[in-house]
Structure formats: C-alpha cells, structure tokens
C-alpha cells in the first residue's frame, strides 16, 4: 500500500470501517511510514472523541451494586489476575478439598453479608460462587505453594499423537505435597469426555483428577498429593468418559516419566502404554 491509498483509508480505518485485508495492508504501511502514522494518530483521536458524544442514559443502581460486590469478592479470593478452569477432583482430592471449602464458604459469607443483600434474586448464584470461590482459593494456594517451594521441579509431558500442538508441563514440590499441570492447545473434547490425570509406577496406575480445558485449549490443574503415599514413576493424561474411569481406557494422550535419566535427556518419552497392559 502506498501513502496515497493509505491516506484515503485512514479515517475509515480509525472508525473501524475497513475490511480485514485492507486493515492489514494499511497497518503494514504505517509500520514503515512515519508521516502516515502521524496522520493515523490524528484520525484515531478524532474517532475516539466520538465515543464521548453519546447521549447519556443513567446506568441502573443494581449494576453498581453488582460490580462492586464482584470486585470485592474477587479481591477476597485474591484471584484478580486470572480465573482457574473448572476442575472436578476425584474422590482422592475431593475429601480434602471439601473440608477447606466448608471453612472457606463461612469465611466469605461473613465478608459478603452486606453485599448479598444488595444482589436481589442472585442468592443462588452467590451460594454457588461462594463454593467455587473457596475451591479456587485452595487451588491457587496449592499453585503458589508449588512455585515457591525450594524443591520445586517441572517436567514437560510428551504428546502421543504425532504433530500434536498440545503441550503440557507438570510442576510439583514433594515438600508441599502438591503439583499442577499447565496445558496449552489441548483439543476440545466431544461432549461426555474429559481429560483424566494419572500417576503411574510399574504395575500401578492411580487416578488423580479429571479436567476440561478452557475453550482456547489452556488449563491449570492443581493436584493435591497429600494422599499419594507412594512414589509415582510417571504422570499421564488420558481421555475418558465424563466422571473419569478407574483405569485408563485407552493409551496416553500425554505422558512424562520422573525417571532421572530420561529427564536429563529432556525426552521423558515413556509411552508406557504397556505399563497397564494395552
């Protein structure tokens, strides 16, 4: 795109009215042309002033109460940076989490007494939020504990499928008896299926948690290992029916061995499908 064509399009671009192809070509030109860039800034500032010209309609009072209550609740949860995905712990970690959830719910309920009154008709939502909030708080506590532990370690898991874009890393700390998986580009599963995490050692495979990644394929899955009273040799992720299975029904979706030798080489490639006789 040349300067002349760019200048013809700048105003429309600033108003958001050019199609994607033209927008892309214009951006490429402006990146290299200071003169057009300055013109674009003028157009942009003019367009931005339009946003101040709107007729005023008073925002409803309940909106203010709702936003303030949520801001306060997020502050109490300490979760302002990001939200954690849904995690359905299996019985192993659920027992521990439920105790924490009960205490947490009481704590938040006292904080929010005033706010709840303002949230007309939202009480069921609030009750659900309280439970979710305390679960998330506990999950975040685990993640922070793992990352800040002096024995914090991590390992990349290998994906079984060739050319898979899926990535997963397992972080853990033995001292904190906790770990978490971070995943990226995990394929969205059909309804009725979940990912399930397992610890393995020779002849033994134990479920840890099931999860559904975010729509963008990312996740952070905290795992409580206080009840894992044996030393796992590896960690695997498989695809299972909703609710999870008692043993992996198919091969690994991703797997990493904790074996020192393979970790040093950085491969960790133990597609130990045979480990559970498949």
């Amino acid at each position: 795109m040349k300067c002349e064509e760019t200048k013809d399009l700048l105003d429309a671009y600033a108003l958001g009215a050019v199609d994607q192809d033209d927008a892309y070509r214009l951006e490429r030109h402006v990146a290299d042309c200071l003169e057009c860039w300055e013109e674009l800034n003028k157009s942009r500032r003019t367009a931005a002033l339009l946003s101040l010209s709107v007729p005023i309609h008073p925002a409803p009072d309940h909106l203010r109460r709702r936003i303030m209550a949520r801001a306060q609740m997020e502050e109490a949860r300490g979760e302002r940076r990001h939200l954690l995905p849904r995690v359905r712990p299996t019985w192993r970690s659920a027992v521990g989490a439920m105790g924490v959830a009960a205490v947490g719910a009481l704590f938040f309920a006292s904080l929010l007494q005033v706010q709840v009154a303002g949230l007309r008709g939202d009480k069921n939502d609030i009750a659900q939020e309280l439970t979710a909030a305390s679960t998330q708080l506990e999950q975040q506590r685990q993640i922070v504990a793992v990352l800040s532990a002096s024995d914090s370690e991590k390992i990349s898991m290998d994906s079984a499928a060739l050319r898979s874009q899926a990535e997963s890393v397992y972080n853990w700390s033995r001292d904190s008896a906790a770990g978490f998986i971070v995943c990226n580009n995990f394929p969205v599963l059909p309804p009725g299926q979940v990912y399930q995490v397992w610890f393995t050692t020779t002849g033994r495979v134990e479920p840890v948690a099931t999860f559904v990644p975010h729509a963008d394929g990312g996740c952070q899955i905290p795992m409580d290992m206080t009840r894992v009273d044996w030393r796992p040799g590896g960690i695997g992720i498989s695809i299972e029916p909703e609710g999870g299975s008692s043993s992996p029904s198919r091969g690994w979706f991703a797997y990493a061995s904790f074996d020192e030798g393979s970790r040093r080489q950085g491969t960790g490639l133990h597609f130990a499908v045979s480990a559970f006789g498949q």
Partner: protein
Amino acid sequence: MRDVSPDETAYSGLDDEELMQRLAYRDLVAFRALYDRYGNLVYSAALRVVRDAQIAEDMVQEIFLRIWRKPESYVAQRGRFVTWLTSVTRNRSVDEVRSRGRRFRHETASPEEQERELPASEQDDPALTAELSDQRRLILAALKQIPAEQREIIELAYFGGLTQQEIAERLSQPLGTVKTRIRLGMQKLRAALTPELKWEQN
C-alpha cells in the same frame, strides 16, 4: 442519595490517572469513585452500540471488572483516561454485536429506525466534570455542523460497527460515495475539534 463516607469524599479530589494508580494497590474506594465518575458514560456508550439495556449492563460490568483486575492495561502516555475508557467500551460493544451475528436486531433495523429507538438526548451527566461536559457539548456541536449524510455514515461506521462496504449496501449508495463522505466528514470534524485533539495528545 447514596451514603458517602468521609473516605470517599477525599477521593473526589483525585484525577482519573491518580485513581487508576490507586487501583494498583487494590483500592476498592478508588474503584468505586471511578465507577461513580464514569459508570453512566460507559453504560451510555455501550447502549449506543448494542441498543439493549441488558447487554449494555454486561458490557459495563465486563469493562469495569477488567479495569479492576488489570489497571495496567491503561497506559497514560497514549491519551486521556476517559477517551480510552469510552473507546474500549465502543470497541468491546462492537465486537459483541458482531459476535451475535446478523440476526441481531441492530443489524436488521434500518438506520432511521435505529435513531428513532434511541433519540439523542441533551441530558447531561451530573457525575462528569464541568470541563468534560463542556467538551461533550463541543463535540456534539461539531457533529451537528457536518452534513447529515456524512454524519450518518460516520456514526454507522463507528457506533454501528459496519464496514464501508456494508454501509454502501445498507444505504444503497456507491462504495466511492461512502468513502468520500467518511473522509469529508472526518476532515470537518477534525478541523472543528482541533483544540480538543491537542488536549487528547497530552
């Protein structure tokens, strides 16, 4: 009148940028002060685009909570806080309208119908500073000065989220005419708003 604690009156002396700096300290009173200053304006900007009170409320909630979670997303060097805030609102609202697709009412109503639905009001927002109210009046006056056919296209682009091509189809006008009207209208607007643009640059 809602209760105003002594705490809150102290915040009314802070400018927008100072309130935003307080958000980095997780200061809820500063957040409330910011909402009280601009809640109506943001709601109105969202409503101007989405034309549905419920969706506009969702937009306001999302935008303010985003500011609460990530106050650093506003960079003071790039312009004034209030125009950043209303521009973000406009952009997010246009995305929402687009993602809801063509079945959305706004896409099917004619421009004339749309304008009738939400008649422009001269009502002012008492929460805005005198300076900002004056500026709003200047912008509205500048918009009135430009020919109606140019203003209509500019508003369809900016608030309606339509491309030049879509506007041409909608109004049954040649694409070239739409492009020319956008350019001429924006030139006039820029000329009329030169003092305001300088302020925006600071």
